[in-house]
């Protein structure tokens, strides 16, 4: 049958970012010990406060156990088999892009992130992170004119040590959880953003993370601070080559907003997901949390999670300031043997705090996709409100979707509303669209983007269309 043939053709869509850049890499030996933590800190010429931070985290980590409450199954991770630092060999200090290895620039160009002056995106500043280090940040000078700091966290540690020391680990403490402790001990690079009082960041900021080496873990650390009345929109993207071994990605992202400040944080995660039998792929264990410290401040998370063999991720908001607002918009798509356990935590501490959760899970193939969310109303959260909507879409009859909403309220004058639904893309729906002249791929993508519209509307314009396409690509061959 023609439809069956179409399905067959589409099944083998390759992962388009699966190439490896052939570049000389400086790696340290496998394994983790106090010496390794000290070595990473020494390589990065860090001040003592940061070495102490790392060592404290390492000691805490040693006493902790890997969490097992998520609806995920994977072989035990051997933390001594991972390389904790890998960096492309290049000149120590890159004063300008001209000094960056052309192979690296080429890699990012291939990923659709041109960095050179002529080709770079006109309205988005990019920090490009390759394995453990940031290789370039665009528009630094232009942003500096507005007082905005946008650089790699390694650079921030050197140039803006006071800011880093003041905020690092204040939202996600070193002993917050197993993976956050690990990250705090060995984090290599990531981005630092500081928007001073009253400044609206003049352009989108973006970090692109690329894992290149096999057997290397990526432990990025991102810290974004918006002072009183400041605002910024930030986007991260991620890809990795196809290896048949699993790689660990354990990131920590901390956001802080002071009075009337807002941060919009968007993620398009497309790490390598493993093949259709579940061989290879990234283990993505990420801790993301924002703290609305100031009154009327706002933190909004939007995530499009399409990659990784395993996703364990709960971007959260601590709504401390009165009238502060937290949002979480998520599309998580799993196919083949992917597993995702993702959601959010909205911790309402201040009065009249508001939160909105919109989660869209799409499960295809033999995958498993769980929403896990906590809404907590503290004793002082008088008049606080939460609205949650969790929708699941099943494609085929081998995939699983679960919803685990947790609600804890210590405040009678707080309102929590939760809605959930499950639907399925059926062969009959596809046939209906096809019988109106709409091709198979377009039909799938129409249905999926219809399902995800509420979330895609939250993405920055430049990336919304991209996300739509990415989802369609990931789903090809999963229906029929």
């Amino acid at each position, binding site marked *: 049958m023609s439809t069956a043939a179409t399905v067959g053709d589409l099944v083998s869509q390759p992962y388009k970012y699966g190439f490896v850049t052939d570049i000389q890499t400086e790696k340290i030996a496998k394994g983790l010990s106090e010496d390794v933590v000290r070595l990473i800190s020494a390589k990065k010429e860090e001040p003592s406060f940061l070495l102490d931070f790392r060592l404290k985290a390492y000691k805490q980590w040693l006493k902790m156990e890997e969490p097992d409450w998520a609806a995920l199954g994977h072989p035990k991770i051997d933390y001594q088999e991972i390389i904790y630092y890998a960096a492309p060999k290049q000149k120590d200090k890159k004063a300008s892009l001209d000094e960056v290895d052309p192979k690296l620039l080429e890699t990012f160009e291939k990923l659709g992130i041109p960095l050179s002056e002529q080709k770079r995106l006109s309205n988005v500043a990019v920090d490009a992170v390759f394995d453990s280090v940031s290789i370039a940040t665009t528009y630094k000078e232009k942003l500096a004119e507005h007082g905005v700091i946008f650089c790699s966290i390694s650079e921030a540690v050197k140039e803006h040590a006071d800011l880093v020391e003041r905020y690092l680990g204040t939202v996600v403490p070193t002993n917050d959880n197993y993976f956050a402790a690990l990250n705090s001990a060995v984090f290599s690079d990531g981005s630092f953003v500081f928007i001073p009082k009253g400044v609206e960041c003049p352009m989108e900021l973006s970090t692109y993370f690329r894992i290149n080496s096999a057997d290397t873990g990526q432990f990025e650390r991102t810290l974004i601070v918006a002072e009183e009345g400041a605002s910024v929109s930030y986007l991260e993207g991620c890809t990795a080559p196809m290896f048949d071994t699993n790689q660990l990605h354990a990131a920590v992202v901390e956001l802080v907003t002071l009075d009337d400040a807002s941060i919009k944080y968007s993620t398009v995660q497309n790490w390598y997901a493993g093949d259709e039998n579940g061989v290879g792929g990234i283990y993505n264990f990420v801790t993301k949390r924002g703290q609305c410290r100031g009154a009327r401040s706002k933190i909004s998370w939007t995530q499009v999670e399409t990659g990784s063999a395993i996703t364990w991720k709960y971007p959260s908001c601590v709504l401390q300031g009165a009238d502060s607002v937290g949002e979480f918009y998520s599309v998580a798509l799993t196919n083949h043997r992917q597993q995702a356990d993702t959601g959010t935590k909205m911790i309402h501490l201040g009065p009249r705090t508001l939160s909105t959760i919109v989660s869209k899970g799409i499960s295809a193939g033999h995958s498993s996709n769980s929403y896990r969310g906590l809404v907590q109303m503290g004793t002082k959260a008088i008049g606080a409100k939460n609205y949650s909507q969790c929708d699941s879409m099943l494609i085929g009859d081998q995939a699983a979707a679960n919803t685990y909403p947790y609600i804890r309220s210590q405040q009678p004058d707080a309102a929590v509303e939760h809605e959930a639904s499950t639907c399925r893309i059926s062969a009959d729906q596809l046939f209906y669209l096809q*019988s*109106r002249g*709409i091709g198979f791929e377009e039909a799938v993508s129409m249905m999926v983007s219809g399902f995800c519209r509420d979330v895609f509307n939250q993405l920055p314009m430049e990336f919304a269309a991209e996300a739509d396409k990415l989802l369609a690509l990931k789903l090809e061959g999963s229906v029929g």
Partner: protein
Amino acid sequence: MIRPDAPVLLEISDLCARVEDQPILKGVNLTIRAGEIHAVMGRNGSGKSTLSKVLAGHPAYTVTAGSVLYRGENLLELAPEQRARTGLFLGFQYPVEIAGVNNLEFLRVATNARRTEQGLDELDTFAFEDLVRERLGVVQMDPAFLERGLNEGFSGGEKKRNEILQMALLEPLVAILDETDSGLDIDALRIVAGGVNQLAGPDNATLLVTHYQRLLDLITPDYVHVMAAGRILRTGGKDLALELERDGYDWVDQELARLGAEPAEVG
């Protein structure tokens, strides 16, 4: 309107098809010329719904023998979307609901797919909106339905009107309407039948698949075919439908017994 010299749009010869392991169509022969209205009648399980789905290319059905020529070309080689783009239309008995897909946007994409095939320019949202508002009149549909999800929460009658609206936009050469009358009250039936009559013309053809005479009171067929056990047992004019209404289908069993055929069970 029967014109012996009108071009043949659809020529079905000895068509056999099965769903899973169950043979359903067992040698259907039917020729449809431009300008004609055909009605296929029969009991549940006679194969008449299967015939319409096979013609539209539903993937659950496998053609095991026979041929279908559409404007002289092999229809069975075409993907369902290609059949639609070239002017074959199936009005569904049970149109599915597709939440989240905006009805207006869906209609526009479908219309443009057909227009592109015809070598016409695609319509932008404004031009399309003008067209769709004009065609809404054919089925007296409330424009509010355009802003809803595709068939989402539509009543049975609203879904059928939406089907005929699609037909009015796509301007098919061959429109196959599968039990379009089922689930309609008399007012809705009049509106839907009125829409079909308006759209029927000398260059296109209509194939009505129906259970009851009542639709044929409103749309006058040129030919009536009685289907049973996966084939067309008898063909006549519009009077044959009246005969069926009066005498029922009992004679069909006798006829089948005479032919030594077993009645099909699915349809």
